[in-house]
């Protein structure tokens, strides 16, 4: 059906392509905020549970509509531009953050047949977007003309840049194994059950990527950018109403992206952990075989881990974060990348 639709729009020429692309964009842009809304709800419930309380229970059955109520409230709040703030940049900063967060989904495949675009260097494209995402933060902090916001932005930017290096090196390990920058090919390289997933040869890189991902999304315990006790809320102190909601949305979208990427790069994407699961089924339907379901299961674990870690650890001190990034993660990844490179070369020459 998707092919037929693509064909239908292709007949219209350039205009048809534009409409088709627009439709695809809507396919990402609509479900994402809804997923984020339920994720925020899940976060409040999970953290409540670890603290012997319930979290939201009032709005809708089991409080399921809480996030939508919050969203509605934020939509109707007035946007306040601080005095002597740079109005244009102040308004455009949250939009930038959301754009970079949403745009990554264009190349992320969620199953064998479900993706929007398949470009050669999709991994590079995602790296590019995550490095550009810094601009939203730095502009938000600077344009607000506030000390807290500026300090938060500076911290967050320094942190993002340091951890991006470690993440980049972790990705180099994956690319060395697969010889490809394409996410589809990376997943297909991990075919054949749990033992052929990338986690095993790249175990340290997997952990580095995971923790750097937490730092990259400014989440606990690396949320220096918005340390409430010292910076009130960090780079988005002055943003209120819908501009704040956009920052919030982008943060959670980024968390989902990082979780999906961990699964795709290291945990076999939508591959079932045991190959024999592909054979169980009837009428040609294999419910437990490779597919979207397995991706969701794995991603949900990492999404839960975000909340679990947030509920457990106190915030890192700023120098500890920098030390962890530069003195632990980067040497570790460099070392392991060299080992992987030598091993792949060795197996190519002698194996």
């Amino acid at each position: 059906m998707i092919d037929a639709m693509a064909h239908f729009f292709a007949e219209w020429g350039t205009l048809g392509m534009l409409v088709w692309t627009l439709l695809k964009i809507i396919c990402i842009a609509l479900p994402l905020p809804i997923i984020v809304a339920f994720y925020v709800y899940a976060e409040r419930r999970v953290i409540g549970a670890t603290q012997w309380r319930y979290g939201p229970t009032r709005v809708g059955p089991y409080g399921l509509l809480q996030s939508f109520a919050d969203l509605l409230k934020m939509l109707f709040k007035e946007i306040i531009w601080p005095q002597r703030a740079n109005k244009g940049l102040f308004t455009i900063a949250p939009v930038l953050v959301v754009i970079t967060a949403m745009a990554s989904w264009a190349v992320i495949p969620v199953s064998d047949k479900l993706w929007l675009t398949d470009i050669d260097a999709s991994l590079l494209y995602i790296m590019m977007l995550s490095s550009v995402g810094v601009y939203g933060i730095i502009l938000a902090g600077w344009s607000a003309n506030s000390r807290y916001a500026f300090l938060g932005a500076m911290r967050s930017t320094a942190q993002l840049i340091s951890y991006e290096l470690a993440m980049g090196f972790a990705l180099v390990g994956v690319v060395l194994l697969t010889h490809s920058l394409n996410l589809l090919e990376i997943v297909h390289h991990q075919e054949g059950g749990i033992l052929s997933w990338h986690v095993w040869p790249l175990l340290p890189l997997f952990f580095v990527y995971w923790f750097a991902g937490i730092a990259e999304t400014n989440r606990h315990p690396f949320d220096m950018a918005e340390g409430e006790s010292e910076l009130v809320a960090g780079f988005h102190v002055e943003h209120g109403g819908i501009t704040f909601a956009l920052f919030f949305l982008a943060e959670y979208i980024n968390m989902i992206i990082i979780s999906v990427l961990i699964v795709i790069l290291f945990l076999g994407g939508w591959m079932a952990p045991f190959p024999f699961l592909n054979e169980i089924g009837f009428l040609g339907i294999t419910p437990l075989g490779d597919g979207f379901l397995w991706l969701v299961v794995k991603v949900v674990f990492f999404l839960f881990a975000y909340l679990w870690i947030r509920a457990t650890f106190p915030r890192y001190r700023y120098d500890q974060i920098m030390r962890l990034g530069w003195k632990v993660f980067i040497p570790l990844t460099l070392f392991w990348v060299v080992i992987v490179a030598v091993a792949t070369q060795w197996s190519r020459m002698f194996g």
Partner: protein
Amino acid sequence: MERAKQFFKTWLLWDMITGLRLTLRRMFEPRTTVFYPEEKTPKSRRFRGMHALRRYENGEERCIACKLCEAVCPALAITIDIAEREDGTRRTTRYEVDMSKCIYCGMCEESCPVDSIVLTNIHEYHGESHQDLYFTKEMLLAVGDRYERQIAHDRAGDAAYR
């Protein structure tokens, strides 16, 4: 040996795993939340809530306008005017408590020689403006009439400790 142990503990994130295990265990333990409007925690007999003026059983108001409460009130929330009634008794013509000034210290109740002004255990009351929280004598007496059973019950239960 000690250093090797430390090394492995650091790199295997042992302390972090311990912490994560603790929070995971907490997630499945019973919760202590009280769903407030439907469920309430028990209140003390000495709870200091909304004010009330009490009456004797024959319907006569207790207050003898001695002005002790007005004098003792640290927040100057009580205002009293006095006049002689037709039967020659000393009574208040005005007894007003500004609830937005009151700090609920309970000193008025303690100073009262006839147990007239009391603090009930009601804390769920509100006003939409400043005026709504300015309680006149009629309002206070009405509160006392309405909750007399509860007030008397609390006082009787606590009498042994006073």
